[in-house]
């Protein structure tokens, strides 16, 4: 019960901090002081205090977009174990639900974008649809590999199962998974080299251009849901890459939080040292991620 409360508390409170850490890391690389760590919280609070403007050409779909996205991401957050602790909700086959909750959220984001009738947002939806199709197989290969390693179809046993012992036995498979899932993590969360969440250039955007017409609290929800998605997918990735566990619950929570912050720093470094990919090259990298994940599946199935 205590663990579930901590789990929900972290999922509610911590996600924007990751964005703050990424921003601070990038600032450090550029030789700037940068915005405070808590800036993403201030931004969300500021937006919550504003009014919303709705175009008269939009329907309920436009208003439902942010809410469905937040709801699906929040449920996914309850399915994924944080660190060594099992998730609050867990059942056989929840990994399929986990994968398609994101798909549902994305569907509504794209539908809301198309609802505006703006060519910008249609352009963004087309890009999002293309690249998410290409990112999905990687996630599924990863789930197959993990379920093979753990003998379970539920996320909690699958992910908590990974330890340094598993790394010793199936190191090659896990290493390829880490590579493939890191690429998907960046792509799904619209980070450089796939997308640039900080750019002001509409023509280059993928995610941001789909939410151009949202304002006020709706935009705050979108920002928060995006941070939560990074957090949830990040927690998945941290299980693979940094499977620390001590057996002491308090210590394990601390380790999980530190691992998540480390991940944010790594993302910040990646964003500092490389430019964005040319948009037509993104499929190449996503296919590479799929191949990595497919090979890891091959290694554990043989």
């Amino acid at each position, binding site marked *: 019960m205590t663990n579930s409360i901590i789990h929900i508390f972290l999922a509610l409170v911590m996600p924007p901090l990751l964005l703050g850490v990424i921003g601070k890391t990038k600032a450090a690389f550029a*030789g700037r002081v940068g915005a405070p760590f808590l800036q993403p919280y201030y931004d969300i609070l500021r937006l919550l205090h504003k009014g919303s403007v709705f175009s008269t050409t939009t329907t309920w779909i436009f208003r439902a977009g942010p809410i469905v996205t937040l709801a699906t991401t929040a449920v996914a957050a309850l399915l994924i174990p944080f660190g060594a602790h099992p998730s609050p909700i867990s059942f056989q086959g929840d990994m399929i639900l986990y994968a398609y909750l994101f798909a549902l959220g994305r569907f509504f984001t794209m539908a809301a974008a198309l609802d505006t009738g703006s*060519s910008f947002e249609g352009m963004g939806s087309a890009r999002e649809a293309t690249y998410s199709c290409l990112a999905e197989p990687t996630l599924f290969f990863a789930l197959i590999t993990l379920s093979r390693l753990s003998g379970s179809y539920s996320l909690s046993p699958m992910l908590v199962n990974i330890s340094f012992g598993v790394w010793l036995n199936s190191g090659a498979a896990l290493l390829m998974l880490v590579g493939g899932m890191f690429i998907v993590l960046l792509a799904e969360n619209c980070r450089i*080299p796939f997308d640039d969440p900080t750019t002001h250039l509409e023509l*280059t955007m993928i995610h941001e251009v789909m939410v151009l017409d949202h304002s006020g609290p709706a935009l705050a929800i979108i920002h928060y849901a995006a941070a939560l998605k990074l957090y949830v997918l990040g927690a998945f990735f941290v299980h693979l890459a940094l499977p620390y566990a001590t057996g002491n619950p308090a210590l394990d929570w601390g380790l999980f939080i530190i691992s998540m912050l480390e991940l944010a720093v790594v993302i910040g470094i990646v964003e500092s040292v490389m430019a964005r990919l040319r948009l037509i*090259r993104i499929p190449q990298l996503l296919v590479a991620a799929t191949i990595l994940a497919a090979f890891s599946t091959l290694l554990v199935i043989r």
Partner: protein
Amino acid sequence: MSATVNSLRDIILSHFGSSAVLCSGTYPPCIPQILVPREQFEDVGWLMKDAGARLAAEWGVDETLLGRQFAVLACFAREGEYILLRCNIPLEDPTFPSLSKKHTPAFRFERQIMSLMGLTPTGHSHSDLRPWIKHEDWPADAWPLRKSFDAAQRMPRVAGEYRWVRAEGEGVYEIPVGPVHAGIIEPGHFRFQAMGEDILNLEERLGYTHKGIEKRFEQLSWVEGARLAGRVSGDSTVAHALTYCRALETLSGTNIAPRAAWLRAIMLERERIANHLGDIGAIANDVGFAFFQFQFMRLKEHLLRGNQQLFGHRYLMDRVVPGGISADLQADGAAAIELELANLQTEFEHLVTIYDLNASLDDRLRSTGLLTAETARELGTVGYVARASGQGLDCRIQAPFSPYDQIQPRMVVLNSCDVHARAWVRIEEIRDSIRLLRGLLATLPHGEILIPLADVPPDSSSLAAVEGWRGEIVYWLQSGLQGEINRCAIRDPSSVNWLALEQAVHNNIVPDFPVCNKSFNQSYSGNDL
């Protein structure tokens, strides 16, 4: 190639015989103005094309206060050689033969002449007589550059529609961008027709910053004009003020002091370095490499603060004035610049190494936004846009004035024609400008910096061209009967280079447009006037 190349002037005079007349009262003497009958105007344009000259500028002039009627002037250039072609136009039939069949840049020059001066080009290659710079919410017969137009009046708003180029078909969609953009930049409208991510066509629509600058000049004194010229395009304030002052000093026969000439060159090169630094950072930022943006912004900021300290203005506005300059370099200034340049050079070279080694940056910038050498020549592009597409054009070298005739700037020409080339030309030019600054400081003469302007003769004209950081800037000044400003025609490099951007984005993908645009970085204000 024949060993002896005839001058453009000789070509025209020998070809047209007595119907071509050399005008008097035009300065400098090396830039002749030739009057031809209206019906032969286009023929001379063809002749100039065959002689390898480009159309640098074309503008109309209302000479009713000089006891004449209208005239259209075309400025042709071949390397460092300039020539003005003129045809007179009667009031009752305000039309002139279009040059656009042979000279592509004429396409927009003539739309502008028609919109603002009310002279109609005939035989226009695309029959494109849509307004340019002046938008359709002004009455079609309001021609602000005519003397009869009262600049103080409020114009009534009228309804009108601009006919866009259209593309239709399965899967073709249109993206209207601007005129107000997300970044802190000037306004301009870009309309894309795209299919998936591929750009089928881009059409620019400018004029949103039209301020009536050319008209305003006619109400100012010559000295006040320099201040206005310095505000045509804020990032090129030195280059514009300098071009204006050079045209004015040529017209009045004022010889400025050597120290002033040297310090003007120092300011011009400082402006070049500062803007090129900012541009390289901005290009990298548009492909998501923010690290460069901040680093280059920092270097630029150091330089701007140096300007403030040395000359009392960050952008050196109003430092170039008719007759010389308004702020002298103090005794310890040279040492301060030397120190500043040493620091700049070290840090700059460090960043260039990073640029060179970063594969992801390389992948984005190379082969993006190709402007072929042929198109660059055809469109009469100037500045780094031309030099990155294999065109050896630089007024500092080809039409030098003191002190550029003594310090030999290096011509940086690249042939890869892409965004990378446009960035790399800037890198090489920064290196060269640092070298030039050192040379200028070493030979800086002593003496006065400002001499009084001599009187401007009535009914005379002069032309000056200066290589600003963006490229060749052209000013043509004409005095009235009392020696006042009758006409000040301005050709910012942007007026021709904007055309090239439309061509460079063909076959590119939509998300690469911003970086293509940033690699051109043309001025809206300088184009809209």
